[in-house]
């Protein structure tokens, strides 16, 4: 148990450092940042890029990139705290339920279907029918994951709750 606890800690710190270094790498790359801005300027839709120029001096004005950055940071925060919740909650699941836990959490990972559906709208708005079909495949796959995972978990758990039956032969 102590070993498990220590490994938990290490895993969490590891995941954290992993993300953070990757992120720092991306941010620390100045050419990336410029490329990023220029990509934004070639944007079809009118983005408020003018504010970008003088934003660095004024202290409390949120610019577009600042906000994107804030969202990323919030996402990272959510990610890490959720991992804590996950670790706390999952270590309480007893051994005998580990197989249903595995298939159930598997089903939850089918949440990509939400991402797929959201992206499908963007694809359609660019009149990219092919992209829509590709995303459609993703939706189907994720749906298999969801339905199959929850279904099989339910099947297993139903067995767990049943009481002993009369002998079959």
């Amino acid at each position, binding site marked *: 148990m102590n070993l498990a606890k220590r*490994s*938990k800690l290490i895993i969490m710190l590891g*995941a954290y450092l992993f993300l953070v270094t990757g992120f720092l790498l*991306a941010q620390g*790359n100045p050419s990336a940042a410029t490329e990023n801005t220029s*990509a934004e300027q070639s*944007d079809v839709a009118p983005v408020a890029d003018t504010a970008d120029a003088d934003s660095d001096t004024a202290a409390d004005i949120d610019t577009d990139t600042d906000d*994107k*950055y804030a969202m*990323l940071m919030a*996402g990272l925060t959510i990610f890490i705290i*959720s*991992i804590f919740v*996950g*670790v706390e*909650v*999952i270590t309480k699941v*007893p*051994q*005998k339920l*580990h*197989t*249903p*836990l*595995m*298939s*159930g*959490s*598997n089903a*939850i*990972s*089918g*949440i*990509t*279907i*939400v*991402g797929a559906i*959201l*992206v499908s*709208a*963007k694809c359609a708005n660019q009149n990219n029918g092919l992209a*829509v079909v*590709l995303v459609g*495949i*993703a*939706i*189907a796959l994720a*749906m298999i*994951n*969801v*339905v*199959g995972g929850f*279904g*099989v*978990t*339910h*099947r297993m758990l139903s*067995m767990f*709750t*049943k009481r002993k039956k009369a002998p079959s032969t």
Partner: protein
Amino acid sequence: MDSKVIYDIFYLLAAILFILGVKLMAHPRTARRGNMFGILGMTIAIVISVLSANEQLVSLKPFTLFVIGLCCLIGILFGGILATRVKMTEMPQLVAVFNGIGGLASVLVAGAALVVANNFSVDEKLATGLSGFIGSITFIGSAVAAGKLQELKFFKKDFPLPTFLRHLINLALVLSCGWAGYALLNASPDQAVLLYVAICSFGFILGYTLTAPIGGADMPVVIALLNSYSGLAASATGFVVGSNILIIAGSLVGASGIILTSLMCVAMNRSLLSVLFGGGKASVDVDADLVYATVKRTTADDVAMMADMSERVVIVPGYGMAVAQAQNAVSDMAEILEKRGVTVEYAIHPVAGRMPGHMNVLLAEADVDYEQLKELEEINPTFDTVDLAIVLGANDVVNPEARKEGTVISGMPILDVDKAQQVVIIKRSLGPGYAGIPNPLFAQDNATMLFGDGREAIQEIIAALKDL
């Protein structure tokens, strides 16, 4: 704006339902409700996402909605078939298949997002790259794992390359991915898509070269790890599309997978690295014939007699029970014994079988009351008051060698079956189990062997019991 508020609140509600769902998994009584919470959360999330997509759609609206609907139906159909048709003994493979499917979905979503993105920031590109990388490894890795567990021919043959070359190839692939990912960060939209395809291709190959050399019996660990990866891929996709629910759900799955992985490794007393990159298994240098010199055989009739005269019988199932699909026969036998006044319990080792909780699921399928299933810590101190221990297709988890130093299973906690008054071991031969080493328990004074397929042997015992 207003509808967005409502959508987001429902997403948050879905996330809460996921967390509560996993929380409720903590007890068999509430676990089913937990699963229902998960289903409810997922339904809410999907419905909300369709609503918000519907709102955002300005062109191709009917087509897109049709595609979404159709694909959902296809998914429900196939998912439903898989969920209801697959046998309980094939659960590990099924979980692997689902994992792989989830990984591929992440790859596709992140790719599509990249194709249609017009102003991805550096971090979104990073997330896209990660999503593709993790997702593609998960996809092929899971396919290999499922194939090995299903014992498909294609996956059976040994990996042809020597270890050193293998490591070199893996390293090269990882570095290529790293390079492509780095380039992706600065790339123009068109280049970015190409680089993404490159990352995924490398990831696919890596998924194969990483998992193919791992032995079939180590697959459960790999599957749990890939489960964790599929969650991380979903999280990364969440960063790409800017959706908190993906991040939360993905990290839950990521945590779950990694915890199960580490629990399995601890219970087997092996490090994750030795599972993944080999090197953990020593060659067998104990002479099996010597160990097995004093093995005694027994018959089903004798076992039935012994069991009938016992006060307390403990059944120790292992992987062999799964192979023989003997769970129903075992449950029937226990029932008959109980009617004759014998107390029957099951001793479940944490890594008996081939995935965590494997035996519990099989026995639950055979309607065994979960109160009768005892965990290692619970039953070990009482083995000396057990009159008869029936070891059914278990081997490593009852191997007393684990108490010695220097064997491949040294340090792994085992069930103290050898302390029981009488031990009967049911298996087809004197062949070794997963760890590949002989088991001195079989030759012990109080132990007798009943050779044969697990289910047939139990059925013979049942017949003999009825004749008594």
